[in-house]
């Protein structure tokens, strides 16, 4: 427990002009009895920092409140080493910059914030980093295709040991099947050799890379820094300890049997892109039916992709692949005709140049919906389509070959090796999970992909949770590569559909993420988004009822069970989101610097005005990931908002404990607002499910509130992203209006 708290109130940046700093000192020193309390007009400057350091040395302060700017700025200036807990009390962005200067309400707000943090400081402790013994910094790459080989080489170049596991007998993956590549470098106009041999040689000759081919992963246990992987190769089992994993198992072509409507199966001359590669690789491009050289070819784009009944998504690479393949034919015979029937050409990035090159070579692009594929004369084929640009029907006949650009399906969207369609298989509920469901488990667990790739020994299931359509990414905008299993990063077309250039870039990014992970783990610290956080959840197991809420709700599968059925945390998997803390009905999970009582103390520390003061008090729990930054941004932009709010930052709304709402209500707080990230489809929650969980939990209190004669509308959850900071004043005003309509909390004064 923190014994000695020093309070350092900064009067710079306009704080002194807006607030009575002496009065703040009184609150800290007199009322809250801080042993040390100082002010300075420029605490983040060298002199100010020195002042704090002197006090730490002299007074053996173990907790520092820096009362001034947001913790999103100047964090290096106020870092005094691991043994000193620093709490940043934001009276700059959240008070001085966003409220009327020298107003009693503004002053009251600042004073309350100091009270709240002084209350928190009473129990806050410096966390002790969890240092792993036998930590491995080896990166394991699963899949030896373009992405996997790139990730291996990039990690090895950064001087990390690499274990590369490939299920086939040789490396190269998809490259083995290709005749040539679409351009990978400027000017992005001409075909390139796959260069496979050189790529494999580069891997084999790198002493940092250990390659297992014809190998499968039997099982992956442990967590970041200490994954114990059992690899099965030629009947024997090998154990490897690795620190982080890059999953680069790629994608497979969409099943053409499902493309009968585009003529697949009607003639051997209707083929897929990969079948065309095989033909081209053999030498002459000829009709499979009779070996006649191809003079006229048509490609049908989006075959299966962008189709609600098949693959709802764009497969991203097939447009460029068709251009490439059309050029194969032009290479063989520049007079041969090539048509591409497309919905939209999506030759993203630099491939616009390639598109132009294909046009220049004479490939004809027809924007149209194919309405039929049929047999013509002499073994030829006919395509009929609605030509969108001409606004009428079009047809192409005497076609020797039709190639269906049949898109890709991630290797993670398979069950026991069999294609199961685009949707993800929700696993059969296991016995344990069923028990949890019976005990009214609040959230359905994220569906776990069944793919027989990593075979994780995790209580939550053997593979990765899916984001959508079987892709195991977690958040494609903010944290690409991250899956919902800490330390496992997806790269290449297993993550989302992509072309080779993107896969190379992706693999490099994922390798970097894996490296960050092993380095952070070595320091006992969390990875993104609480990078550097060394706190960990403590379980007071003697009070655990084995309800398994924490195990189920942990978004990262960090919690297993021990033999007795008690929760068993794998510390290196933990992201410090504290969802488990909010989930536990017994409230036995806490962090050294964040806990249910700690926040409880904070919300008991501010003043609640009496009814006759006619100043409703509103408490806001704001998520540190987006909501707090949004509130800060509002301040930075000098937007003014209601001064009767009190804001408590939380790690994630997933850590919300209902007891806080109870306590707030019984103190006479008139309204409680939860500000978190968007959830559901395209969620923004940095911990996947936090804000959603909070709302589910909230739905449970409403009933109780109503029963107590308290209007449940007094407690509301809203979502906000940092970009919406302009909405903050309006959002608060609307909530305030609502609360004023309801009148004061009837518990006031009880």
């Amino acid at each position, binding site marked *: 427990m923190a014994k000695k708290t020093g309070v350092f109130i900064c009067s710079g940046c306009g704080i002194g002009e807006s607030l009575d700093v002496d009065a703040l000192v009184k609150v800290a020193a007199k009322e809250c009895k801080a042993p040390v309390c100082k002010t300075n007009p420029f605490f983040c400057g060298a002199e100010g920092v020195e002042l704090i350091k002197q006090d730490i040395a002299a007074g053996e302060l173990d907790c520092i409140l820096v009362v001034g700017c947001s913790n999103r700025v100047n964090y290096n200036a106020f870092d005094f080493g691991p043994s000193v807990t620093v709490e940043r009390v934001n009276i700059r962005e959240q008070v001085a910059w966003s409220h009327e200067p020298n107003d009693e309400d503004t002053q009251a707000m600042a004073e309350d914030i100091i009270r709240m943090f002084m209350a928190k400081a009473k129990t806050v402790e410096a966390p002790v980093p969890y240092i792993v013994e036998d930590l491995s910094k080896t990166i394991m790459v699963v899949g030896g295709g373009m992405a996997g080989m790139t990730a291996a080489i990039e990690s090895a170049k950064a001087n990390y040991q690499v274990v590369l596991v490939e299920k086939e007998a040789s490396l190269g993956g998809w490259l083995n099947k290709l005749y040539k590549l679409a351009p990978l470098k400027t000017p992005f106009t001409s075909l390139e050799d796959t260069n496979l041999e050189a790529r494999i040689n580069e891997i084999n000759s790198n002493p940092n890379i250990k390659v297992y081919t014809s190998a499968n992963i039997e099982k992956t246990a442990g967590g970041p820094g200490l994954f114990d992987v059992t690899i099965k190769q030629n009947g024997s089992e090998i154990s490897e300890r690795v620190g982080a994993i890059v999953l680069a198992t790629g994608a497979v072509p969409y099943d053409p049997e499902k493309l009968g409507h585009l003529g697949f199966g009607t003639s051997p001359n209707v083929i897929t892109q990969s079948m065309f590669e095989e033909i081209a690789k053999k030498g002459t491009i000829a009709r499979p039916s009779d070996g006649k050289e191809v003079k006229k070819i048509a490609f049908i784009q989006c075959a299966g992709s962008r189709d609600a009944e098949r693959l709802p998504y764009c497969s991203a690479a097939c447009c460029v692949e068709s251009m490439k393949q059309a050029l194969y034919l032009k290479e063989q015979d520049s007079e041969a005709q090539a048509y591409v029937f497309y919905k939209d*050409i999506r030759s993203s990035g630099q491939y616009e140049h390639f598109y132009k090159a294909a046009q220049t070579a004479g490939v004809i692009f027809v924007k149209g919906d194919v309405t039929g594929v049929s047999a013509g004369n002499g073994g030829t084929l006919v395509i009929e389509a609605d030509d969108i*640009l*001409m606004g009428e*029907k*079009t047809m192409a006949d005497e076609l020797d070959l039709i190639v269906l650009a049949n898109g890709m399906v991630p290797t993670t969207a398979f069950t026991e090796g069999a294609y199961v369609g685009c949707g993800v298989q929700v696993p059969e509920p296991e016995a344990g999970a069923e028990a949890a469901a019976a005990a009214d488990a609040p959230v359905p667990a994220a569906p776990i992909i069944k793919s027989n790739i990593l075979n994780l020994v995790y209580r939550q299931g053997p593979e990765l949770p899916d984001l959508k359509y079987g892709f195991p990414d977690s958040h494609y905008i903010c944290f690409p590569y991250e899956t919902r299993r800490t330390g496992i990063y997806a790269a290449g077309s297993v993550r989302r559909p992509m072309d080779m250039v993107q896969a190379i870039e992706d693999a490099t990014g994922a390798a970097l993420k894996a490296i960050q992970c092993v380095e952070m783990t070595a320091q006992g610290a969390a990875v993104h988004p609480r990078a550097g956080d060394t706190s960990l959840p403590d379980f007071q197991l003697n009070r655990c009822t084995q309800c398994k809420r924490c195990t189920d709700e942990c978004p990262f599968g960090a919690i297993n069970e021990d033999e007795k059925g008690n929760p068993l945390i794998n510390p290196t998997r933990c992201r410090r989101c504290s969802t488990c803390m909010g989930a536990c009905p017994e409230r036995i999970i806490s962090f050294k610097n964040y806990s249910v009582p700690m926040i409880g103390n904070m919300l008991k520390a501010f003043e609640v005005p009496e009814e006759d003061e006619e100043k409703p008090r509103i408490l806001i729990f704001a998520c540190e990931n987006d909501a707090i930054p949004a509130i800060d941004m509002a301040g930075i932009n000098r937007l003014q908002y209601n001064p009767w709010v009190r804001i408590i930052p939380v790690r994630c709304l997933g850590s919300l404990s209902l007891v806080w709402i109870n306590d707030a209500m019984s103190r006479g707080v008139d309204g409680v607002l939860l500000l978190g990230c968007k959830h559901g489809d395209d969620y923004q929650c940095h911990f996947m499910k936090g804000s959603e969980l909070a709302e589910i939990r909230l739905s449970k209190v409403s009933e109780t509130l109503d029963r107590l004669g308290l209007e449940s509308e007094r407690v509301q959850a809203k979502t906000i992203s940092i970009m919406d900071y302009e909405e903050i004043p309006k959002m608060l005003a609307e909530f305030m209006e609502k609360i004023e309509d309801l009148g004061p909390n009837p518990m006031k004064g009880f």
Partner: protein
Amino acid sequence: MVDNKISSAPVKYDNSFAKEIYALENGHYAQICMQCGMCAVSCATHDIMDYSPRRLFNLVRVGKKEEVMRSNTMWMCTACCMCKVRCPRGIPLVDVMHDLKAMAIKQGYVDYPHAAFHQAFWQEAFSRGRVFEGGIMARFILKRGLGEIKKLLALGMKDMGMGMLKHGRVPLVPPRKIKGLKELQQIIQRAQALQEKEAK
């Protein structure tokens, strides 16, 4: 104006006409058009064109020679260059339009008065080295016949001519031919010979 309706049978893409166009000086640019339509929304005279430049290029691709050559599109182009500035593919549409005009004149698609005007201008420039409004007008009327004068008069062209005269803006005598006219003509003839050679 030509009949814009394209026949009702399914269109078949036939590239023989396209090849003819792509062989023009700037014709190859039409090949890289990506049919985005930026030119159409930028064009100063789009609303009176038979086909927008985008559509014209697609007709080239399909092989609709008569529709393209008889369309007014290239003749309506004012060379305002808005499309050229905006085309994401960097196509100098104005120059393609010039090529189409030159091809139309060469192949006898000269129904539009603009064709006559262009020719009149060219003859004036070639034979004097500089152009003189009166000279262009005379040549233009000569080509188009008196009907054209009637049309212009109906719009009030006579008053406009008088106005110009009154404000001292119409030199009645044409300016002298340039001194180096002979050399200029030799240069032009050589250029045309080179141009033809290049096209082959």
